Protein backbone atom coordinates (compact mmCIF):
# COMPACT_ATOMS: atom_id res chain seq x y z
CA UNK A 1 0.00 0.00 0.00
CA UNK A 2 2.59 2.52 1.12
CA UNK A 3 4.99 1.56 -1.64
CA UNK A 4 2.22 1.96 -4.18
CA UNK A 5 1.25 5.34 -2.73
CA UNK A 6 4.86 6.50 -2.66
CA UNK A 7 5.36 5.31 -6.21
CA UNK A 8 2.39 7.27 -7.52
CA UNK A 9 3.31 10.34 -5.45
CA UNK A 10 6.85 10.31 -6.80
CA UNK A 11 5.56 9.91 -10.30
CA UNK A 12 3.23 12.91 -9.89
CA UNK A 13 5.93 14.81 -7.98
CA UNK A 14 3.62 15.40 -5.02
CA UNK A 15 4.81 16.40 -1.59
CA UNK A 16 3.55 17.28 1.88
CA UNK A 17 -0.22 17.36 2.32
CA UNK A 18 -0.97 16.21 -1.22
CA UNK A 19 0.97 13.05 -0.52
CA UNK A 20 -1.07 12.35 2.58
CA UNK A 21 -4.33 13.02 0.77
CA UNK A 22 -3.32 10.66 -2.02
CA UNK A 23 -2.57 8.01 0.58
CA UNK A 24 -5.97 8.51 2.22
CA UNK A 25 -7.77 8.35 -1.12
CA UNK A 26 -5.91 5.18 -2.01
CA UNK A 27 -6.84 3.58 1.31
CA UNK A 28 -10.52 4.36 0.77
CA UNK A 29 -10.33 3.03 -2.78
CA UNK A 30 -8.68 -0.20 -1.66
CA UNK A 31 -11.23 -0.60 1.14
CA UNK A 32 -14.06 -0.14 -1.34
CA UNK A 33 -12.36 -2.61 -3.66
CA UNK A 34 -12.02 -5.22 -0.92
CA UNK A 35 -15.65 -4.68 0.04
CA UNK A 36 -16.85 -5.15 -3.53
CA UNK A 37 -14.74 -8.28 -3.97
CA UNK A 38 -16.09 -9.73 -0.74
CA UNK A 39 -19.66 -8.83 -1.72
CA UNK A 40 -19.31 -10.46 -5.13
CA UNK A 41 -17.75 -13.54 -3.63
CA UNK A 42 -20.53 -13.99 -1.10
CA UNK A 43 -23.15 -13.32 -3.75
CA UNK A 44 -21.68 -15.95 -6.03
CA UNK A 45 -21.44 -18.33 -3.10
CA UNK A 46 -25.19 -18.09 -2.44
CA UNK A 47 -25.70 -19.18 -6.03
CA UNK A 48 -23.12 -21.95 -5.70
CA UNK A 49 -24.79 -23.13 -2.54
CA UNK A 50 -28.16 -23.42 -4.22
CA UNK A 51 -26.80 -25.16 -7.30
CA UNK A 52 -24.78 -27.66 -5.28
CA UNK A 53 -27.73 -28.26 -2.98
CA UNK A 54 -29.94 -28.84 -5.99
CA UNK A 55 -27.58 -31.30 -7.56
CA UNK A 56 -27.06 -33.19 -4.30
CA UNK A 57 -30.81 -33.47 -3.90
CA UNK A 58 -31.21 -34.65 -7.50
CA UNK A 59 -32.69 -31.32 -8.57
CA UNK A 60 -31.33 -28.70 -10.94
CA UNK A 61 -31.34 -25.57 -8.79
CA UNK A 62 -31.86 -21.99 -9.94
CA UNK A 63 -31.20 -21.80 -13.69
CA UNK A 64 -33.56 -19.23 -15.16
CA UNK A 65 -32.03 -15.82 -14.50
CA UNK A 66 -29.32 -15.03 -17.00
CA UNK A 67 -27.18 -17.61 -18.77
CA UNK A 68 -27.26 -20.86 -16.78
CA UNK A 69 -28.93 -18.94 -13.98
CA UNK A 70 -25.68 -17.16 -13.19
CA UNK A 71 -27.40 -13.88 -12.39
CA UNK A 72 -29.74 -15.32 -9.80
CA UNK A 73 -27.74 -13.80 -6.95
CA UNK A 74 -28.17 -10.31 -8.41
CA UNK A 75 -31.90 -10.84 -8.62
CA UNK A 76 -31.97 -12.05 -5.01
CA UNK A 77 -29.93 -9.08 -3.86
CA UNK A 78 -32.17 -6.66 -5.72
CA UNK A 79 -35.21 -8.21 -4.14
CA UNK A 80 -33.75 -7.93 -0.65
CA UNK A 81 -32.77 -4.29 -1.18
CA UNK A 82 -36.26 -3.37 -2.25
CA UNK A 83 -37.98 -5.09 0.66
CA UNK A 84 -39.21 -3.07 3.60
CA UNK A 85 -36.78 -2.84 6.49
CA UNK A 86 -38.97 -3.64 9.48
CA UNK A 87 -38.07 -2.91 13.08
CA UNK A 88 -40.41 -4.66 15.53
CA UNK A 89 -42.24 -2.30 17.89
CA UNK A 90 -40.91 -4.03 21.01
CA UNK A 91 -37.33 -4.23 19.74
CA UNK A 92 -34.47 -2.12 20.97
CA UNK A 93 -34.22 0.09 17.89
CA UNK A 94 -30.62 1.37 17.84
CA UNK A 95 -29.10 -1.98 18.82
CA UNK A 96 -31.36 -3.78 16.39
CA UNK A 97 -30.24 -1.53 13.54
CA UNK A 98 -26.59 -1.68 14.51
CA UNK A 99 -26.19 -5.46 14.83
CA UNK A 100 -25.98 -6.43 11.12
CA UNK A 101 -23.26 -3.85 10.54
CA UNK A 102 -21.09 -5.44 13.20
CA UNK A 103 -21.47 -8.80 11.50
CA UNK A 104 -20.63 -7.34 8.09
CA UNK A 105 -17.70 -5.34 9.42
CA UNK A 106 -16.37 -8.30 11.37
CA UNK A 107 -16.29 -10.55 8.34
CA UNK A 108 -15.42 -8.08 5.61
CA UNK A 109 -12.63 -6.41 7.58
CA UNK A 110 -10.96 -9.78 7.77
CA UNK A 111 -10.68 -9.78 3.96
CA UNK A 112 -8.08 -7.06 4.31
CA UNK A 113 -5.42 -9.58 5.23
CA UNK A 114 -6.44 -12.39 2.90
CA UNK A 115 -3.45 -13.06 0.62
CA UNK A 116 -5.08 -13.50 -2.77
CA UNK A 117 -1.69 -13.33 -4.41
CA UNK A 118 1.90 -12.64 -3.61
CA UNK A 119 1.43 -8.91 -4.13
CA UNK A 120 -2.34 -8.93 -3.94
CA UNK A 121 -3.03 -8.37 -0.28
CA UNK A 122 -4.53 -5.19 1.10
CA UNK A 123 -2.45 -5.28 4.29
CA UNK A 124 0.08 -7.96 5.17
CA UNK A 125 -0.02 -7.43 8.93
CA UNK A 126 2.76 -8.94 10.97
CA UNK A 127 0.08 -10.30 13.32
CA UNK A 128 -2.09 -11.45 10.41
CA UNK A 129 -3.43 -14.69 11.88
CA UNK A 130 -4.22 -13.16 15.24
CA UNK A 131 -5.87 -10.20 13.52
CA UNK A 132 -8.11 -12.55 11.56
CA UNK A 133 -9.13 -14.51 14.63
CA UNK A 134 -9.72 -11.32 16.60
CA UNK A 135 -11.65 -9.30 14.06
CA UNK A 136 -14.03 -12.14 13.24
CA UNK A 137 -15.03 -12.15 16.91
CA UNK A 138 -16.97 -8.97 16.15
CA UNK A 139 -19.47 -11.34 14.52
CA UNK A 140 -20.21 -12.83 17.93
CA UNK A 141 -21.02 -9.41 19.31
CA UNK A 142 -23.26 -8.64 16.35
CA UNK A 143 -25.09 -11.94 16.58
CA UNK A 144 -25.60 -11.67 20.33
CA UNK A 145 -26.71 -8.07 19.94
CA UNK A 146 -29.25 -8.92 17.26
CA UNK A 147 -30.60 -11.76 19.38
CA UNK A 148 -30.98 -9.51 22.39
CA UNK A 149 -32.33 -6.46 20.59
CA UNK A 150 -35.00 -8.40 18.71
CA UNK A 151 -36.88 -8.92 21.98
CA UNK A 152 -37.96 -12.31 20.78
CA UNK A 153 -37.33 -15.54 22.64
CA UNK A 154 -36.15 -17.44 19.57
CA UNK A 155 -33.73 -14.71 18.61
CA UNK A 156 -32.37 -14.49 22.12
CA UNK A 157 -31.85 -18.25 22.30
CA UNK A 158 -30.14 -18.16 18.92
CA UNK A 159 -27.89 -15.31 19.96
CA UNK A 160 -26.89 -16.99 23.20
CA UNK A 161 -26.24 -20.26 21.44
CA UNK A 162 -24.09 -18.47 18.89
CA UNK A 163 -22.04 -16.81 21.58
CA UNK A 164 -21.51 -20.05 23.50
CA UNK A 165 -20.64 -21.93 20.34
CA UNK A 166 -18.23 -19.41 18.86
CA UNK A 167 -16.41 -18.89 22.14
CA UNK A 168 -16.05 -22.65 22.65
CA UNK A 169 -14.87 -23.42 19.14
CA UNK A 170 -12.42 -20.55 19.10
CA UNK A 171 -10.23 -22.70 21.38
CA UNK A 172 -9.58 -25.68 19.06
CA UNK A 173 -9.40 -23.35 16.06
CA UNK A 174 -6.67 -21.24 17.62
CA UNK A 175 -4.78 -24.29 18.89
CA UNK A 176 -4.83 -25.87 15.45
CA UNK A 177 -3.68 -22.62 13.86
CA UNK A 178 -0.90 -22.38 16.43
CA UNK A 179 0.57 -25.66 15.16
CA UNK A 180 1.16 -23.98 11.81
CA UNK A 181 2.43 -20.79 13.42
CA UNK A 182 4.86 -22.90 15.40
CA UNK A 183 6.22 -24.55 12.26
CA UNK A 184 6.48 -21.40 10.16
CA UNK A 185 7.65 -19.15 12.98
CA UNK A 186 5.60 -16.21 11.77
CA UNK A 187 2.09 -14.81 12.19
CA UNK A 188 2.06 -12.99 8.87
CA UNK A 189 -0.16 -14.58 6.22
CA UNK A 190 2.40 -14.05 3.46
CA UNK A 191 5.15 -15.38 5.70
CA UNK A 192 3.22 -18.59 6.34
CA UNK A 193 2.65 -19.09 2.62
CA UNK A 194 6.28 -18.35 1.83
CA UNK A 195 7.32 -21.02 4.34
CA UNK A 196 5.49 -23.62 2.29
CA UNK A 197 5.98 -24.71 -1.30
CA UNK A 198 4.08 -25.36 -4.50
CA UNK A 199 3.87 -29.12 -4.45
CA UNK A 200 1.41 -30.88 -2.12
CA UNK A 201 4.23 -32.46 -0.06
CA UNK A 202 5.50 -28.96 0.69
CA UNK A 203 2.17 -27.90 2.14
CA UNK A 204 1.69 -27.76 5.88
CA UNK A 205 -1.26 -30.09 5.39
CA UNK A 206 1.16 -32.91 4.65
CA UNK A 207 4.01 -31.65 6.80
CA UNK A 208 3.52 -34.45 9.30
CA UNK A 209 0.58 -36.55 10.53
CA UNK A 210 -0.19 -34.03 13.23
CA UNK A 211 -0.59 -31.06 10.91
CA UNK A 212 -2.79 -33.32 8.78
CA UNK A 213 -4.95 -33.81 11.85
CA UNK A 214 -4.70 -30.12 12.75
CA UNK A 215 -6.20 -29.18 9.40
CA UNK A 216 -9.32 -31.23 10.05
CA UNK A 217 -9.59 -29.84 13.55
CA UNK A 218 -9.26 -26.30 12.26
CA UNK A 219 -11.79 -26.88 9.50
CA UNK A 220 -14.36 -28.41 11.85
CA UNK A 221 -13.93 -25.58 14.32
CA UNK A 222 -14.13 -22.99 11.55
CA UNK A 223 -17.36 -24.48 10.23
CA UNK A 224 -18.75 -24.35 13.75
CA UNK A 225 -17.64 -20.75 14.19
CA UNK A 226 -19.30 -19.83 10.93
CA UNK A 227 -22.62 -21.25 12.19
CA UNK A 228 -22.82 -23.64 9.30
CA UNK A 229 -24.63 -26.97 9.32
CA UNK A 230 -24.02 -29.37 11.09
CA UNK A 231 -23.28 -26.71 13.70
CA UNK A 232 -25.99 -24.23 12.77
CA UNK A 233 -27.68 -24.27 16.15
CA UNK A 234 -27.96 -20.46 16.32
CA UNK A 235 -30.19 -20.54 13.26
CA UNK A 236 -31.71 -23.99 13.64
CA UNK A 237 -34.79 -23.35 11.55
CA UNK A 238 -36.60 -26.40 12.89
CA UNK A 239 -36.19 -25.26 16.49
CA UNK A 240 -35.71 -21.49 16.55
CA UNK A 241 -37.58 -20.32 13.41
CA UNK A 242 -34.45 -18.60 12.12
CA UNK A 243 -32.56 -17.91 15.34
CA UNK A 244 -30.96 -14.54 15.84
CA UNK A 245 -32.10 -13.11 12.51
CA UNK A 246 -35.76 -14.10 12.84
CA UNK A 247 -36.98 -10.50 13.10
CA UNK A 248 -34.82 -9.08 10.34
CA UNK A 249 -35.97 -8.29 6.84
CA UNK A 250 -34.76 -6.53 3.75
CA UNK A 251 -31.21 -5.28 3.53
CA UNK A 252 -30.43 -5.90 7.19
CA UNK A 253 -31.26 -9.56 6.74
CA UNK A 254 -29.11 -9.57 3.63
CA UNK A 255 -26.30 -8.22 5.83
CA UNK A 256 -26.38 -11.32 8.02
CA UNK A 257 -26.68 -13.49 4.98
CA UNK A 258 -23.74 -11.95 3.16
CA UNK A 259 -21.71 -12.07 6.35
CA UNK A 260 -22.35 -15.79 6.62
CA UNK A 261 -21.31 -16.48 3.06
CA UNK A 262 -18.30 -14.17 3.14
CA UNK A 263 -17.31 -16.08 6.25
CA UNK A 264 -17.36 -19.35 4.31
CA UNK A 265 -14.92 -17.90 1.83
CA UNK A 266 -12.85 -16.47 4.62
CA UNK A 267 -12.46 -19.77 6.43
CA UNK A 268 -11.54 -21.49 3.17
CA UNK A 269 -9.03 -18.76 2.38
CA UNK A 270 -7.45 -19.09 5.82
CA UNK A 271 -7.29 -22.87 5.43
CA UNK A 272 -5.71 -22.38 2.01
CA UNK A 273 -3.14 -20.02 3.46
CA UNK A 274 -2.28 -22.09 6.50
CA UNK A 275 -2.40 -25.59 5.10
CA UNK A 276 -2.55 -25.59 1.30
CA UNK A 277 0.34 -23.40 0.29
CA UNK A 278 -1.72 -20.35 -0.73
CA UNK A 279 -0.66 -18.86 -4.07
CA UNK A 280 2.47 -21.00 -4.46
CA UNK A 281 2.87 -22.39 -7.97
CA UNK A 282 4.38 -25.89 -8.19
CA UNK A 283 7.97 -25.68 -9.40
CA UNK A 284 8.23 -21.89 -9.12
CA UNK A 285 9.99 -20.22 -6.21
CA UNK A 286 8.43 -17.11 -4.63
CA UNK A 287 11.39 -15.03 -5.91
CA UNK A 288 10.70 -16.06 -9.51
CA UNK A 289 7.02 -15.42 -9.02
CA UNK A 290 7.64 -11.91 -7.72
CA UNK A 291 9.24 -10.87 -11.01
CA UNK A 292 6.48 -11.82 -13.44
CA UNK A 293 2.93 -10.50 -13.79
CA UNK A 294 1.87 -13.68 -15.57
CA UNK A 295 3.02 -15.84 -12.68
CA UNK A 296 1.26 -13.48 -10.28
CA UNK A 297 -1.97 -14.08 -12.16
CA UNK A 298 -1.43 -17.84 -12.09
CA UNK A 299 -0.80 -17.58 -8.36
CA UNK A 300 -4.05 -15.66 -7.89
CA UNK A 301 -5.96 -18.28 -9.87
CA UNK A 302 -4.39 -21.07 -7.83
CA UNK A 303 -5.37 -19.37 -4.60
CA UNK A 304 -8.93 -18.76 -5.74
CA UNK A 305 -9.24 -22.33 -6.99
CA UNK A 306 -8.06 -23.77 -3.69
CA UNK A 307 -10.33 -21.48 -1.69
CA UNK A 308 -13.29 -22.33 -3.95
CA UNK A 309 -12.76 -26.01 -3.33
CA UNK A 310 -12.82 -25.22 0.39
CA UNK A 311 -16.10 -23.33 -0.04
CA UNK A 312 -17.52 -26.24 -1.97
CA UNK A 313 -16.63 -28.59 0.86
CA UNK A 314 -18.36 -26.35 3.40
CA UNK A 315 -21.48 -26.24 1.25
CA UNK A 316 -21.31 -29.96 0.67
CA UNK A 317 -21.10 -30.58 4.45
CA UNK A 318 -24.26 -28.59 4.92
CA UNK A 319 -26.26 -30.79 2.58
CA UNK A 320 -24.90 -34.00 4.04
CA UNK A 321 -24.98 -33.84 7.81
CA UNK A 322 -27.88 -33.40 10.21
CA UNK A 323 -27.66 -30.77 12.94
CA UNK A 324 -26.06 -31.66 16.26
CA UNK A 325 -27.80 -31.29 19.61
CA UNK A 326 -26.49 -28.62 21.96
CA UNK A 327 -24.94 -31.13 24.35
CA UNK A 328 -23.37 -33.04 21.45
CA UNK A 329 -21.99 -29.80 20.13
CA UNK A 330 -20.24 -29.05 23.39
CA UNK A 331 -19.04 -32.61 23.83
CA UNK A 332 -17.52 -32.62 20.32
CA UNK A 333 -15.68 -29.44 21.17
CA UNK A 334 -14.44 -30.13 24.68
CA UNK A 335 -14.07 -33.90 24.63
CA UNK A 336 -12.60 -34.35 21.19
CA UNK A 337 -11.44 -31.22 19.42
CA UNK A 338 -9.69 -29.46 22.29
CA UNK A 339 -7.62 -32.44 23.52
CA UNK A 340 -6.74 -33.44 19.97
CA UNK A 341 -5.63 -29.94 19.01
CA UNK A 342 -3.55 -29.71 22.18
CA UNK A 343 -1.99 -33.01 21.21
CA UNK A 344 -1.27 -31.65 17.73
CA UNK A 345 0.39 -28.56 19.14
CA UNK A 346 2.55 -30.54 21.55
CA UNK A 347 3.42 -33.16 18.94
CA UNK A 348 4.45 -30.47 16.46
CA UNK A 349 6.71 -28.88 19.05
CA UNK A 350 8.32 -32.25 19.76
CA UNK A 351 8.61 -32.91 16.05
CA UNK A 352 10.50 -29.66 15.55
CA UNK A 353 12.80 -30.54 18.41
CA UNK A 354 13.60 -34.06 17.29
CA UNK A 355 13.64 -33.86 13.53
CA UNK A 356 15.72 -31.11 11.94
CA UNK A 357 13.94 -29.32 9.10
CA UNK A 358 15.05 -30.46 5.65
CA UNK A 359 16.62 -33.67 6.89
CA UNK A 360 16.03 -37.02 5.22
CA UNK A 361 13.53 -38.18 7.86
CA UNK A 362 11.69 -34.88 7.60
CA UNK A 363 11.25 -35.31 3.87
CA UNK A 364 10.25 -38.96 4.15
CA UNK A 365 7.53 -37.96 6.61
CA UNK A 366 6.27 -35.28 4.19
CA UNK A 367 6.05 -37.79 1.35
CA UNK A 368 4.53 -40.42 3.61
CA UNK A 369 1.79 -38.08 4.85
CA UNK A 370 1.06 -36.89 1.32
CA UNK A 371 0.81 -40.51 0.16
CA UNK A 372 -1.54 -41.24 3.05
CA UNK A 373 -3.67 -38.25 2.07
CA UNK A 374 -3.77 -39.48 -1.51
CA UNK A 375 -4.78 -42.93 -0.34
CA UNK A 376 -7.65 -41.51 1.70
CA UNK A 377 -8.73 -39.59 -1.40
CA UNK A 378 -8.67 -42.76 -3.50
CA UNK A 379 -10.68 -44.71 -0.96
CA UNK A 380 -13.18 -41.87 -0.93
CA UNK A 381 -13.48 -41.93 -4.72
CA UNK A 382 -13.93 -45.68 -4.65
CA UNK A 383 -16.81 -45.24 -2.18
CA UNK A 384 -18.37 -42.58 -4.41
CA UNK A 385 -18.35 -44.85 -7.45
CA UNK A 386 -19.52 -47.70 -5.32
CA UNK A 387 -22.56 -45.67 -4.32
CA UNK A 388 -23.31 -44.76 -7.92
CA UNK A 389 -22.92 -48.30 -9.22
CA UNK A 390 -24.71 -50.02 -6.37
CA UNK A 391 -28.04 -48.50 -7.44
CA UNK A 392 -27.36 -49.03 -11.14
CA UNK A 393 -26.99 -45.30 -11.85
CA UNK A 394 -24.66 -43.77 -14.39
CA UNK A 395 -22.05 -41.05 -14.15
CA UNK A 396 -23.16 -37.66 -15.47
CA UNK A 397 -20.48 -35.01 -15.28
CA UNK A 398 -22.49 -32.27 -16.96
CA UNK A 399 -22.71 -30.39 -13.67
CA UNK A 400 -23.99 -27.20 -15.26
CA UNK A 401 -26.82 -28.99 -17.04
CA UNK A 402 -30.13 -27.28 -16.62
CA UNK A 403 -32.60 -29.71 -18.10
CA UNK A 404 -33.95 -29.43 -21.61
CA UNK A 405 -33.07 -26.69 -24.02
CA UNK A 406 -35.23 -23.62 -24.22
CA UNK A 407 -35.26 -20.12 -22.87
CA UNK A 408 -37.59 -18.70 -20.34
CA UNK A 409 -39.92 -16.28 -21.94
CA UNK A 410 -43.61 -16.39 -21.09
CA UNK A 411 -44.54 -15.65 -24.67
CA UNK A 412 -42.35 -18.39 -26.09
CA UNK A 413 -43.77 -20.69 -23.52
CA UNK A 414 -47.34 -19.77 -24.33
CA UNK A 415 -46.74 -20.15 -28.03
CA UNK A 416 -45.04 -23.49 -27.65
CA UNK A 417 -47.66 -24.63 -25.28
CA UNK A 418 -50.36 -23.68 -27.71
CA UNK A 419 -48.58 -25.74 -30.34
CA UNK A 420 -48.45 -28.72 -28.02
CA UNK A 421 -52.17 -28.60 -27.59
CA UNK A 422 -52.88 -28.26 -31.27
CA UNK A 423 -50.55 -31.11 -32.19
CA UNK A 424 -52.11 -33.53 -29.79
CA UNK A 425 -55.47 -32.36 -30.87
CA UNK A 426 -54.92 -33.05 -34.53
CA UNK A 427 -53.27 -36.39 -33.85
CA UNK A 428 -56.09 -37.79 -31.79
CA UNK A 429 -59.16 -36.13 -33.19
CA UNK A 430 -58.04 -36.12 -36.79
Amino acid at each position, binding site marked *: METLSNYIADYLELSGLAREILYAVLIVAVAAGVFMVALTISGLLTLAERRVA*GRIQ*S*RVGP*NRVGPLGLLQWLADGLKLIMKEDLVPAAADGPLFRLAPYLVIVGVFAAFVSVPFGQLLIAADLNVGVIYLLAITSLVTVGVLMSGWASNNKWSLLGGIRAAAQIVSYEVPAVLAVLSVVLLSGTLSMQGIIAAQGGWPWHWYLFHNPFTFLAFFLYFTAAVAEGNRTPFDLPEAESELVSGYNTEYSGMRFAGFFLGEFANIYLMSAIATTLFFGGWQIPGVTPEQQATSWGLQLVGLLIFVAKASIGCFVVIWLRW*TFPRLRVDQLMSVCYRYLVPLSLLCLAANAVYMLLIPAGSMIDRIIHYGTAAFGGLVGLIFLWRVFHHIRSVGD*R*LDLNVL*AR*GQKGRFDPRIQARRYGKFRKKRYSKETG
Partner: protein
Amino acid sequence: MGSFSEYLANIGRSIVTLGDGLAVTFSYLLRKPFTIQYPDRTEKPVVAMLPERSRGILEIDINVCTGCSICAKQCPIDCIHIEVVKDEETKQRVLKRFDIDVAKCMFCGLCVEACPVSGLRHTHEFEGSMSDVHRLMLSFVDKPQPVAKPAKKDEPAPETKPVGSIVRKLLADWWKPANPTSGGPR
Protein backbone atom coordinates in the same frame (compact mmCIF):
# COMPACT_ATOMS: atom_id res chain seq x y z
CA MET B 1 -8.56 -48.10 29.78
CA GLY B 2 -11.92 -49.37 28.65
CA SER B 3 -13.34 -45.90 28.32
CA PHE B 4 -10.27 -44.68 26.47
CA SER B 5 -10.55 -47.40 23.85
CA GLU B 6 -14.20 -46.46 23.57
CA TYR B 7 -13.11 -42.86 23.04
CA LEU B 8 -10.81 -43.91 20.21
CA ALA B 9 -13.49 -46.17 18.75
CA ASN B 10 -15.88 -43.19 18.77
CA ILE B 11 -13.43 -41.15 16.76
CA GLY B 12 -12.82 -43.99 14.30
CA ARG B 13 -16.52 -44.66 13.88
CA SER B 14 -17.36 -41.04 13.28
CA ILE B 15 -14.60 -40.66 10.68
CA VAL B 16 -15.76 -43.72 8.74
CA THR B 17 -19.48 -42.92 8.89
CA LEU B 18 -19.08 -39.21 8.14
CA GLY B 19 -16.79 -40.05 5.23
CA ASP B 20 -19.26 -42.50 3.81
CA GLY B 21 -22.08 -40.00 4.21
CA LEU B 22 -20.04 -37.50 2.25
CA ALA B 23 -19.41 -40.13 -0.42
CA VAL B 24 -23.15 -40.68 -0.82
CA THR B 25 -23.95 -37.01 -1.33
CA PHE B 26 -20.93 -36.54 -3.57
CA SER B 27 -22.10 -39.41 -5.72
CA TYR B 28 -25.37 -37.53 -6.26
CA LEU B 29 -23.38 -34.59 -7.58
CA LEU B 30 -22.14 -36.86 -10.33
CA ARG B 31 -25.53 -38.17 -11.34
CA LYS B 32 -28.20 -36.74 -13.56
CA PRO B 33 -30.86 -34.73 -11.72
CA PHE B 34 -34.19 -36.45 -11.59
CA THR B 35 -36.21 -33.27 -11.97
CA ILE B 36 -37.94 -32.34 -15.18
CA GLN B 37 -38.47 -28.65 -15.64
CA TYR B 38 -42.20 -28.22 -15.98
CA PRO B 39 -43.70 -26.79 -18.10
CA ASP B 40 -41.40 -25.32 -20.73
CA ARG B 41 -38.35 -27.59 -20.78
CA THR B 42 -39.84 -31.03 -21.20
CA GLU B 43 -39.31 -33.17 -24.27
CA LYS B 44 -43.02 -33.80 -24.64
CA PRO B 45 -45.99 -32.11 -23.03
CA VAL B 46 -46.28 -33.56 -19.54
CA VAL B 47 -49.81 -34.79 -20.34
CA ALA B 48 -48.23 -37.18 -22.85
CA MET B 49 -45.71 -38.45 -20.31
CA LEU B 50 -48.22 -39.52 -17.66
CA PRO B 51 -48.77 -43.20 -16.88
CA GLU B 52 -51.60 -44.82 -18.79
CA ARG B 53 -54.02 -45.11 -15.89
CA SER B 54 -53.35 -41.78 -14.22
CA ARG B 55 -56.56 -40.03 -13.21
CA GLY B 56 -57.00 -36.57 -14.63
CA ILE B 57 -60.01 -34.36 -15.23
CA LEU B 58 -63.20 -36.36 -15.86
CA GLU B 59 -65.04 -36.34 -19.15
CA ILE B 60 -68.33 -37.81 -20.31
CA ASP B 61 -69.28 -38.88 -23.79
CA ILE B 62 -72.92 -37.84 -23.82
CA ASN B 63 -73.60 -39.88 -26.94
CA VAL B 64 -73.14 -43.02 -24.86
CA CYS B 65 -74.56 -41.90 -21.52
CA THR B 66 -77.89 -43.50 -20.64
CA GLY B 67 -78.75 -40.87 -18.12
CA CYS B 68 -79.03 -43.41 -15.30
CA SER B 69 -77.44 -41.02 -12.76
CA ILE B 70 -75.57 -43.82 -11.01
CA CYS B 71 -72.40 -41.80 -11.22
CA ALA B 72 -73.98 -38.79 -9.54
CA LYS B 73 -75.22 -41.03 -6.73
CA GLN B 74 -71.83 -42.65 -6.33
CA CYS B 75 -69.95 -39.42 -5.99
CA PRO B 76 -69.17 -38.86 -2.31
CA ILE B 77 -69.01 -35.11 -2.69
CA ASP B 78 -71.82 -34.55 -5.14
CA CYS B 79 -69.89 -32.85 -7.85
CA ILE B 80 -71.74 -34.45 -10.76
CA HIS B 81 -75.01 -32.73 -11.66
CA ILE B 82 -77.37 -34.54 -14.05
CA GLU B 83 -80.81 -33.42 -15.16
CA VAL B 84 -82.93 -35.81 -17.21
CA VAL B 85 -86.46 -34.79 -18.24
CA LYS B 86 -89.14 -36.62 -20.18
CA ASP B 87 -90.00 -35.05 -23.50
CA GLU B 88 -93.83 -34.86 -23.63
CA GLU B 89 -94.05 -35.25 -27.42
CA THR B 90 -91.61 -38.03 -28.18
CA LYS B 91 -91.97 -39.77 -24.82
CA GLN B 92 -88.19 -39.92 -24.72
CA ARG B 93 -85.90 -39.14 -21.81
CA VAL B 94 -83.81 -36.12 -22.60
CA LEU B 95 -80.43 -35.23 -21.09
CA LYS B 96 -80.68 -31.56 -20.23
CA ARG B 97 -77.65 -31.00 -18.09
CA PHE B 98 -74.47 -32.93 -17.33
CA ASP B 99 -72.05 -30.82 -15.30
CA ILE B 100 -68.97 -31.92 -13.42
CA ASP B 101 -67.52 -29.54 -10.85
CA VAL B 102 -63.81 -30.19 -11.33
CA ALA B 103 -62.99 -27.79 -8.52
CA LYS B 104 -64.61 -30.17 -6.04
CA CYS B 105 -63.72 -33.49 -7.63
CA MET B 106 -61.08 -35.43 -5.75
CA PHE B 107 -60.36 -37.86 -8.59
CA CYS B 108 -61.33 -40.90 -6.54
CA GLY B 109 -62.69 -42.71 -9.58
CA LEU B 110 -65.82 -44.11 -7.89
CA CYS B 111 -68.08 -42.61 -10.55
CA VAL B 112 -65.97 -44.07 -13.36
CA GLU B 113 -66.19 -47.55 -11.88
CA ALA B 114 -69.94 -47.28 -11.50
CA CYS B 115 -70.81 -46.18 -15.02
CA PRO B 116 -72.46 -49.19 -16.76
CA VAL B 117 -71.63 -48.02 -20.29
CA SER B 118 -68.13 -46.65 -19.71
CA GLY B 119 -69.15 -43.24 -20.92
CA LEU B 120 -67.57 -41.52 -17.95
CA ARG B 121 -63.80 -41.71 -17.76
CA HIS B 122 -60.64 -40.05 -16.54
CA THR B 123 -58.48 -38.20 -19.04
CA HIS B 124 -54.83 -37.31 -18.57
CA GLU B 125 -55.57 -33.57 -18.57
CA PHE B 126 -54.68 -31.84 -15.35
CA GLU B 127 -53.77 -28.27 -16.23
CA GLY B 128 -56.90 -26.33 -15.43
CA SER B 129 -55.87 -23.31 -13.44
CA MET B 130 -58.54 -20.63 -13.60
CA SER B 131 -58.92 -17.14 -12.27
CA ASP B 132 -62.54 -17.88 -11.34
CA VAL B 133 -63.36 -21.07 -9.53
CA HIS B 134 -66.89 -21.18 -10.96
CA ARG B 135 -65.48 -21.69 -14.39
CA LEU B 136 -64.22 -25.07 -13.26
CA MET B 137 -67.79 -26.31 -13.62
CA LEU B 138 -67.56 -28.26 -16.86
CA SER B 139 -70.75 -28.47 -18.91
CA PHE B 140 -70.87 -31.34 -21.32
CA VAL B 141 -74.38 -30.78 -22.69
CA ASP B 142 -74.80 -27.79 -24.99
CA LYS B 143 -78.38 -28.41 -26.01
CA PRO B 144 -80.74 -31.07 -24.63
CA GLN B 145 -80.49 -34.37 -26.44
CA PRO B 146 -82.16 -37.76 -26.01
CA VAL B 147 -80.25 -40.23 -23.88
CA ALA B 148 -78.58 -43.24 -25.47
CA LYS B 149 -80.13 -46.72 -25.31
CA PRO B 150 -77.90 -49.27 -23.64
CA ALA B 151 -76.54 -51.81 -26.12
CA LYS B 152 -78.31 -55.23 -26.38
CA LYS B 153 -76.44 -58.42 -25.48
CA ASP B 154 -75.30 -59.32 -29.00
CA GLU B 155 -74.85 -55.73 -30.27
CA PRO B 156 -71.38 -54.22 -30.32
CA ALA B 157 -70.77 -51.48 -27.81
CA PRO B 158 -71.30 -48.01 -29.31
CA GLU B 159 -68.30 -46.09 -30.56
CA THR B 160 -66.95 -43.51 -28.14
CA LYS B 161 -64.87 -40.48 -28.90
CA PRO B 162 -61.13 -40.78 -28.17
CA VAL B 163 -60.29 -40.28 -24.54
CA GLY B 164 -59.44 -36.70 -23.76
CA SER B 165 -60.75 -35.15 -26.97
CA ILE B 166 -63.95 -33.87 -25.36
CA VAL B 167 -62.34 -32.34 -22.33
CA ARG B 168 -59.61 -30.77 -24.42
CA LYS B 169 -62.18 -28.93 -26.45
CA LEU B 170 -63.68 -27.59 -23.26
CA LEU B 171 -60.23 -26.75 -21.88
CA ALA B 172 -59.41 -24.80 -25.00
CA ASP B 173 -62.60 -22.82 -24.45
CA TRP B 174 -61.58 -22.17 -20.87
CA TRP B 175 -58.84 -19.89 -21.95
CA LYS B 176 -61.22 -17.68 -23.89
CA PRO B 177 -62.72 -15.15 -21.52
CA ALA B 178 -66.44 -15.24 -20.80
CA ASN B 179 -67.28 -18.27 -22.88
CA PRO B 180 -70.90 -19.18 -22.20
CA THR B 181 -70.34 -22.93 -22.54
CA SER B 182 -67.55 -22.90 -19.99
CA GLY B 183 -69.98 -22.48 -17.19
CA GLY B 184 -69.54 -19.08 -15.69
CA PRO B 185 -70.86 -18.24 -12.26
CA ARG B 186 -73.99 -20.13 -11.40
